[in-house]
C-alpha cells in the first residue's frame, strides 16, 4: 500500500506493507543505501537514522510508524552545497572509520546526541554511544571526535586520555 514519507526534506511515496522495517524501505525502495543492516533487532545501531531529530533504529521500526515524520538519513547530513555536517567532518579529522560499515549509524547517533545536548560530558558520550557497535573497535576515536565538537569543552569535564 502507498505510504507517504518525508525523507531528507523530500516527500516520497513508497509502496510497502505497513510492517516493513523503515530500513528496507530506505535502502531498497528509495535507494538510500548509506543506512546499513547489521542485526535486524535494534542491537547494533548500524541502521540508525533521525526521526524528528531523534536517533531511531530503522531496522526495527515499521515504516507506518514514521509516516508524516521528518526522516533524515546519512545522505541528508550533507547540505545543499555539499558541505559536510560537523560530525562527518570531525570523523574525517580523527580518522574514525576503518571498515566504515557502522559509521553511518555512529554519525547519526552522535549528531542526535549533540543536537539535544551540545556539551555532553564524557560519561554521557560513553553512555549514549554504547548503543552503537563497531567491530573494528573505533570507539576511542568516536569518543574523541564527539569531544572535539562539544561547546565549552573544559566546562563539560575535558580530561586528557
Amino acid at each position, binding site marked *: 500500500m502507498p505510504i507517504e514519507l518525508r525523507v531528507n526534506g523530500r516527500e516520497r511515496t513508497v509502496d510497502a506493507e505497513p510492517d*516493513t522495517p523503515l530500513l528496507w524501505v530506505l535502502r531498497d525502495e528509495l535507494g538510500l543505501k548509506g543506512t*546499513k543492516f547489521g542485526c535486524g533487532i535494534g542491537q547494533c545501531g548500524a541502521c540508525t537514522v533521525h526521526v524528528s531529530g531523534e536517533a531511531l533504529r530503522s531496522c526495527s521500526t515499521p515504516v507506518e510508524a514514521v509516516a508524516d515524520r521528518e526522516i533524515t538519513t546519512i545522505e541528508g547530513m550533507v547540505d545543499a552545497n555539499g558541505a559536510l555536517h560537523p560530525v562527518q567532518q570531525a570523523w574525517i579529522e580523527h580518522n574514525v572509520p576503518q*571498515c566504515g*560499515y557502522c559509521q553511518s549509524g555512529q554519525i547519526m547517533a552522535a549528531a542526535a546526541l549533540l543536537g539535544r545536548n551540545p556539551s555532553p560530558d564524557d560519561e554521557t558520550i560513553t553512555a549514549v554511544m554504547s548503543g552503537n*557497535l563497531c567491530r573494528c573497535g573505533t570507539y576511542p576515536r568516536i569518543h574523541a571526535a564527539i569531544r572535539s565538537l562539544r561547546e565549552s569543552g573544559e566546562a563539560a569535564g575535558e580530561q586528557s586520555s
Partner: protein
Amino acid sequence: MKLSRREFIKAGGTGSGALVIGLTLPGCSRSGGPRITEDGSWTPNAWLVLDGSGDVTFTLDRVEMGQGTYTGLTTLVAEELDVHPESVRIIFAPVGDAYANPEYILQVTGGSTSLATSWERLRKAGAGARALLVKAAAEVWQVEPGDIRTDEGALYHPDGTQTMAYSDVVELAARQRMPDEIPLKLPENFRYIGRHDKRLDAYAKVTGRAVYGLDVERPDMVYAVVSRPPRVGAKVDAVDDSAALAQKGVVDVFTIERGVAVVADSYWHARKAQEKLRIEWDERDAFRGDHESIFQDYRKAADDSRGDTERSNGNARSVLRRADRVFTAEYEAPFLAHATMEPQNCTAEVTARGLEIWAPTQAPDIARIAAARVTAFSPGDIEVHTTFLGGGFGRRLTQEYVEEAAAIAEKLDRPVKLIWSREEDIRHDMYRPGMLHRFQASLNGEGIEAWDHQITGPLIFDYFARNAAATQYPWVPRFLYDTMARVGRLTEGTFLTPKDHSAIEGAVEVPYGAPNILVRHTQADAGVPISYWRAVGHSHNGFAVETFMDELAHEAGVDPVEFRLRHLTDKPRHRAVLEKVAEAADWKGSMNEDHARGVAVHWSFGSYVAQIVEASIENQRILVHRVSCAIDCGQIVNPDIVRMQMESGINFGLSAALHGRIDWDEGRVRQSNFHDYRLLQQDESPAMDIVLVDSEEDPSGVGEPGLPPVIPALGNALFALTGKRQRSTPFVADPGETS
C-alpha cells in the same frame, strides 16, 4: 618480500594514448602480462594507468576491509610516482594473475601481508612509471633525464622555468623502454611514506557513499535468503513450500546444495516467506555436541596421542621426567564467530558473457572457483567485482555466500542479491577453532629449564583447501576440485603445498630462551566448520603462551616484565617493545589501589607487540581501564593507520576476552545475535596509548598483531588483582581457585 626475479614491471600504451604499468610473470602466467585493449578500458594485470586527461588510476589488488590498504598501498605508488595520494583514483582489482598475493599464490587479502608484499613491487611500479615520464620529458626538452625533477604530477625542466604535466607526455612515455634497474627513493627523501595519515576512504565512509557488497544494485534485481541446516552435517530431507510460495512478492523457492532458497521481489518479502517454509532435515549424521563434549574429546586426544613434534630444542621430555617440580597448566580457547558488521552477502547475475559476481570477499579468485563449483560456468566465464568490505577478519576468505548466490542466480533470469541475517551469520560461520593447550615446565632457579607445550585441536587448511586448492589451478575440470583439495592436504609441507601453521603459529616461535623446548600438535577435529579468524593461531597461542609465562614468573618470584626480559637476551626487538611499553604504562608506578596491571609480548605476522593492561573488578564486572601498546612493524607507511590497527586489534581481542564464546545445545548453535554473542561496546573500550617504535626494517603486518597480547595481558592483570588465574576465555570476575 622482495620482487621475485621472475617478475618484471612492464609498461605499455593504449590506443587512446594512456600509459599502463603492470606486472608480468614470465613462465608461470595464466593470462600473460598487461594486455591492453584499444580503448584502454580493460587492462588486466595493470596497476597504474596514466591517461592524457591527467587521471592516475591505481588498481588496488588487496581488498579494503578497514585495515587500510586503500590508503597504504596507494601511498606506496604515489610516493614513487611523485603524485599526491589524494589525487589517485582507486579501483578494486578484478581477478588477475598479477594480483595474486605472492605469499599464498592466491588473490587473498589476509595474514597481515598486504604492505609487506607490496612494499617493493608497488614502489617499483610507481618508480617505473615516473622513469618513463622523465625519459619522455628528456626527449622533448633534449636534456639529461637525471636533471629533471618531478613533483605532484608535474615535470620540471632543469632550467627552472619550463614545466609539463605528466599528462602531456604519457603517450610518449608509453613508447619508452623500461629501464632494467628501477631505483627507489631513499627513505630520507620520502614525502608521503611515514607521513601521510589521512585515510583516502574516509570521505566515502562518512557520507554513506562507500559501496559495500550489501549496497550493490542491479536493474530488475530480486532478493534471496537461504534456510540452512540447523545442525552441521544435516541435509534437506523434504520441503513444503506451499505456504511460502503463497506469500506476497515470492518469485521462487528451490533447494540448493547448501539449503533452501527463497527468492522474492524484496528482502523483506523473502524473509517473511522464509518463515512459512516447512523443512524436514535429515539429521542422521549431524553434529550433536557442544563446547564441553568437544573439549572432552580434545582432552582424550591429548591423553592418547603425544601428537606431532613441531619444535624441539634439547630434550624437554627427559628433563621434565627428572625434574623435582613440574609446573603444569591447561588452557581453553573457545570457538568464536567473526561477526563482521556487514552480514555475508553476494549479488550474482547471469549475462550473455557468463556469470557476474559482486561480493565483499577477501579472495576474488577463490570466489570465482566457488561459483564455478556450483554452476555450469567455467572460471574463465565468471567475473568477480569486489566491493568495500564491512569487516573481514578472515570471515570472507571462504566463499559460502558466493556459492549460494551463484547457484541461485543460475536458476533465475535476473540478477539476485543474497543476504544473510545476523542470526544466520552467527550460526553458520566458519568459526575460530576452539583449542586446548597443555603446558609442563620446570625451572632452574629463576630461569626456565624445560618447556613443553601441547596444542590440541583442528587444522584450518582441511576446510579452506576445498576451494583454495583448485584456485591455484583454475583450468582443472570441476570434478577434480575436491581431488585438488585432497592432494593439497596429502602433499602439505612439500613444494606443492605449504605447511598448515594455523594450530601452532605463535607457539613454535616462543621467543624465550630455554635449553629444552618442545612444542607439539595433537590433531582433534569435531567437524565444526572453521576458518581463519583475526590473528588465527596467534589468537589462542598468544593467550596460552603468555599466560603460562606469567604463571612461571609468579612461581619464580620474579616481576613479569623482568622475567620475560631475562629470557629474551638475544631478542632485541621483543625487548625493545617490552621496555617501551613498561615505560609508557609506568609499569612499576603507582595506580588506584583497586587496579592491577598485566603484561604480554607477542610476535606475529612479522611484527613485535607488547601490551600492558590496567584492570579492576567492580560489582563482579571486569573493567579494562587502560591498554598501553608498543609496536615494531618495521618502517611505517601511514603512522595513524598503524595506531588505528593497534586500537582495533586491542578492542577485537577484548571482545573475545570478555564476551566471546560459541556454544551449542545438542549441536544447535546457542548464540544468534549481538544480545548473546556480545561485542565490546563504547563503555568497555579502554583508554589506549600506542607507541610506534622507529625501525629501518622492511614493513610487516599491523592488521592482526595488535590482538594476541591483549587477551593474556588482561588475564595476567586479573591474576595480579585477585590471585586467581584465568585459564579460559571469556574471563569471569571469579574463575574459582585455579592454582
